Structures are given as structure tokens and as C-alpha cells.
């Protein structure tokens, strides 16, 4: 097994200093940022689906750390609780009962859903509000709520259906990868809480190496399609999965096979935006030029005389 420490050290509570700030932005929605003066080591969270026991400690830890209390949900006869991600629930265990057609075994697939922290973030590209979504040089994609206008464009941009708009303050919410914990040298709360180390956190390189060991182990146990989920369509992600059936990610509660930013979003945020403004500008310019060249179209005295003749001149 790769030699890295599962246990992240406890935080230094005496003088925690944030080492992650606006100077580390590599992307800022609807605006540009100066090139950061330093490049942080890319980080990643690795979720080993095969080690997950579905205890939901990660969900509880997420609520605790972010100080959120979602509404008590309704039991619909399945383990998923709540039914979907909400503005208060950034991460969610999704349970799937799957019959493996090769072995006829019932497999209980449990996937911890949440923001994947795409290298090519669709939410950020769709966002119209300057600075409402940012990406740090360590790969974390974060929502800056004071700049969020609640338009829901991020929802349309996201290939994973992650952001949720709050009905309370009309702002978008999702997993922050515990950017505030990472800023002081900690790992995400969910990773800290996971009793089986199914969730681990470190540099992206470390995580890939760790995944390799896990995949080899799974393959030796008969999961010949075990593999890493780090989808290239979005430039790779800073939340990755080890899947025992990596050839068919869809069986894990609809994890997309080849996620990428929708071509419709590219069209909307690309050609439409620039061609649209150009066409509007062209129409206005044609008007100005036409008026300069042609001059006003005035009614002549003759026109008025003709009208008077037609109308009969009665007062």
C-alpha cells in the first residue's frame, strides 16, 4: 500500500493562519484574475467506493463542520437520506442495489455524491456574477456567497447536477472541499470522520498513487474492471472515486460515464455571447451610418399640399 498517512494531524488551535486566499485564484467567474504568484500543490479527495460501509458519518461531519441543520426528512423506504443534495446537504450517500449479470450477485453500491471540483468547472464558466465562483491553484472550486445572485446558471453549467439554490437566501450552495480547513493544513471534515478510510485526502499525485494500490488489490480479488474515476472530459477532478466497476460508472446512482461541459453551455457562453453583442453593435452602427449618409427622411411642403388637396381643406 502506498506509504502515506491516513490520519491527518489535528489542527493547531493556538494560532491557525489561513494559507489560501484570493491571491491563489486561477479562475474567477465573469472576470479575470492576475496570474497567482505561487502555484499550490493540487489536492484531491479520493473516495474508495469499495471500502464504504454507508454509515453516513461523512454526511454528519459535513453538517457539523459547516454548521448546517437540514430539515428532518421523510423515510421513503430507501437508505438515501435526504433524497437528494440540498442547499444544506453538500454530500449525500447514494445507495444502489445492483445485480451483477456475470455473477448474479446482488451488489450494494454506495457512492458519496457531491461536488467533484472539476479542473474545467462548468459552474464557473456559466456564472454571470463576477467573483461568485472561484478556483484556487490547488484545484478547489468554491462559491463566494456574497457575490452570488442566485440565478441558477451554475446548475446548468454543472455536468454532475451538484449546486443547489437556497430558498432562504437565494444563493447557490455545494461542497467547498472544506477550503477553510485546507487553508489551515487540514483535510475535509468528511475524510476526517470516515471510519474505514474510504475517504482520504492529500495531494492529487498521492491520491492517484494510493488509488493504484487499491485498484491492484481489487483486481486481485476478482474485480477485473476496478479503476480510477478521474474523468478527462472535465480536465480531471479533485474528487476522485475508486470504482470496482470503473467500466460502467452509471450503475453508481447515475455517475456520468464521460462528463463534460454541455455543448449547449459552450454555445451559450461562447459564440452566443460574442456574436450576440457584435450583431447588436452592427445594427446600431448601420443605423448611425445610414443616417449620416442618407440624412433624415422629411415630409416636403408638396406632401402637405397634396394632403390638404385630398382632405378638401375644410376646417
Amino acid at each position, binding site marked *: 500500500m502506498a506509504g502515506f498517512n491516513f490520519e491527518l494531524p489535528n489542527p493547531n488551535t493556538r494560532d491557525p493562519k489561513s494559507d489560501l486566499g484570493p491571491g491563489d485564484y486561477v479562475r474567477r467567474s465573469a472576470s479575470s484574475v492576475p496570474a497567482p504568484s505561487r502555484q499550490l500543490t493540487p489536492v484531491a479527495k479520493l473516495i474508495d467506493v469499495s471500502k464504504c460501509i454507508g454509515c453516513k458519518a461523512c454526511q454528519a461531519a459535513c453538517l457539523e463542520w459547516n454548521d448546517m441543520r437540514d430539515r428532518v426528512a421523510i423515510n421513503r423506504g430507501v437508505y438515501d437520506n435526504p433524497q437528494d443534495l440540498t442547499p444544506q446537504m453538500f454530500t449525500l450517500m447514494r445507495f444502489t442495489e445492483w445485480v451483477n449479470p456475470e455473477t448474479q450477485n446482488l451488489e450494494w453500491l454506495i457512492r458519496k455524491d457531491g461536488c467533484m471540483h472539476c479542473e474545467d468547472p462548468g459552474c464557473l464558466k456559466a456564472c454571470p456574477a463576477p467573483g461568485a465562483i472561484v478556483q484556487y491553484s490547488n484545484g478547489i472550486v468554491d462559491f463566494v456567497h456574497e457575490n452570488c445572485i442566485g440565478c441558477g446558471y451554475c446548475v446548468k453549467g454543472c455536468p454532475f447536477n451538484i449546486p443547489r439554490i437556497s430558498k432562504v437566501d437565494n444563493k447557490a450552495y455545494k461542497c467547498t472541499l472544506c477550503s477553510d480547513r485546507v487553508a489551515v493544513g487540514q483535510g475535509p471534515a468528511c475524510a476526517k470522520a470516515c471510519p474505514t478510510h474510504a475517504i482520504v485526502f492529500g495531494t492529487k499525485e498521492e491520491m492517484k498513487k494510493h488509488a493504484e494500490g487499491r485498484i491492484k488489490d481489487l483486481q486481485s480479488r476478482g474485480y477485473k474492471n476496478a479503476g480510477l474515476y478521474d474523468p478527462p472530459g472535465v480536465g480531471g477532478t479533485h474528487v476522485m472515486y475508486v470504482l470496482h466497476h470503473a467500466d460502467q460508472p452509471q450503475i453508481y446512482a447515475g455517475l456520468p460515464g464521460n462528463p463534460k461541459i454541455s455543448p449547449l453551455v459552450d454555445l451559450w457562453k461562447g459564440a452566443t455571447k460574442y456574436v450576440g453583442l457584435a450583431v447588436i453593435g452592427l445594427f446600431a452602427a448601420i443605423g448611425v451610418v445610414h443616417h449620416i449618409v442618407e440624412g433624415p427622411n422629411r415630409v416636403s411642403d408638396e406632401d402637405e399640399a397634396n394632403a390638404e388637396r385630398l*382632405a*378638401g381643406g375644410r376646417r
Partner: protein
Amino acid sequence: MTAYDVEKGDSVHPGKPVTVDRYTGGARINHWITATSLVLLAISGLALFHPSMYFLTGLFGGGQATRAIHPWIGVILFFSFFGLFFRFWRANLWAAEDGTWMARLADVLTAREERLPEVGKYNAGQKVVFWGMSILIVVLISSGLVIWDQYFYPLTSIEQKRVAVVIHAAAAVTIICVWIVHVYAAIWVRGTIGAMTKGRVTGGWAWRHHRRWLKELVSGKKA
């Protein structure tokens, strides 16, 4: 001669110059509510369309307020335009001379009125603006409802919303262009704006640009 061109309130007052009533007070109020809504929609929409115009959200009280108010102005525009549609649709039906007028667009743009057919209350260009606005407003309100997430989020899928947002943007760009044509024509053809402010135009204006309509009004009066 068909009489569909003459609308309620249209009438000729002989004199020097002749004046012609073109729009009633109701029609004018209806028009200006629509116009104000359209301008506010264009400004708030452009603010969310391109980052270079995001500062325009300041006019509405910030990004959150702009996002919240834009769809409501759209609702006002829709119902207001609905009123205009019922006032004007009959006079905007395509007539035989409209094809000829369109074919001679070069003469239109060079103000050679003598080469154009006599037209009724609206010329082919105005009719294109009317029907263009009508269709685009329906497209805009329908696609707009699909992306009005605050109230209608659960009714459509994310993929449907992506289609709607592209259609909404394209239709918005188109309607802004139609609006530029509409406003420019009103400015270029002098004597036009009075029709929507004071409600009347001069006889010479009607003779020059809408002779068939003027003749209809005069013959109606004499009859």
C-alpha cells in the same frame, strides 16, 4: 379598397396643415408601458448576459435584485404587448403591395417614396417588426419560464433548461436588433414620433408614407 387598415380612433382633420389622428390615448399608454418594459428587460438581461455589462445590475439594486425583477418585468411586457397585439394585428396582416414594397427595399432606404407602392396604415417593414416582436415575445416568455428557477425549477430537466437558456439568449439578441430597427425608423422618418407622443401626424406625413391609409380615412369621412 379594404377597410381593415383603419383602426379605432383614426381620423382626418382638414386644415393647414391637415392633421391625422393615428393612436388613441389608450394605445399610446399601452405602447409606452411595453416600451419601458422592453428597455428595462434589455438592460437587466444584458447585465446577466455579458460580464462587461454586469455593472448595469447597479440600476436595479444589485445582482440579486436584477435576477429577481427581470422575469417579473417580462410578465408585464407580455401582458402589455398582448394588448398592443389585439389593437394592431388586423392592420398588420400582409397585403398584396407589401411584397412589392419589400422587393424595393433599396428605394425605401434611399427615401425614394415615389417608387414605392401606396401602403396602408403600416408598411411591410413595420409589419415585419410587428410580427417579429410578437413571435419573439412568445419565444422569450416561454423560454424564460423554463429558466425562472425561483418558481418553476422542478417543472423541467436541467437539459431542457440549457436548451431554453440558449434560445432565450438568441431571441433576446434578435429582439434587441428588431427594436433598434423600430426606433431608428421612427427617428429617421421625421414626423413619426408625434404619432406615439401626441397621437397625431401631419397630413403630409400620411400622404408621403401611408397614402392608402390617408385616402381610406378621407373617403370614409366623406361617405
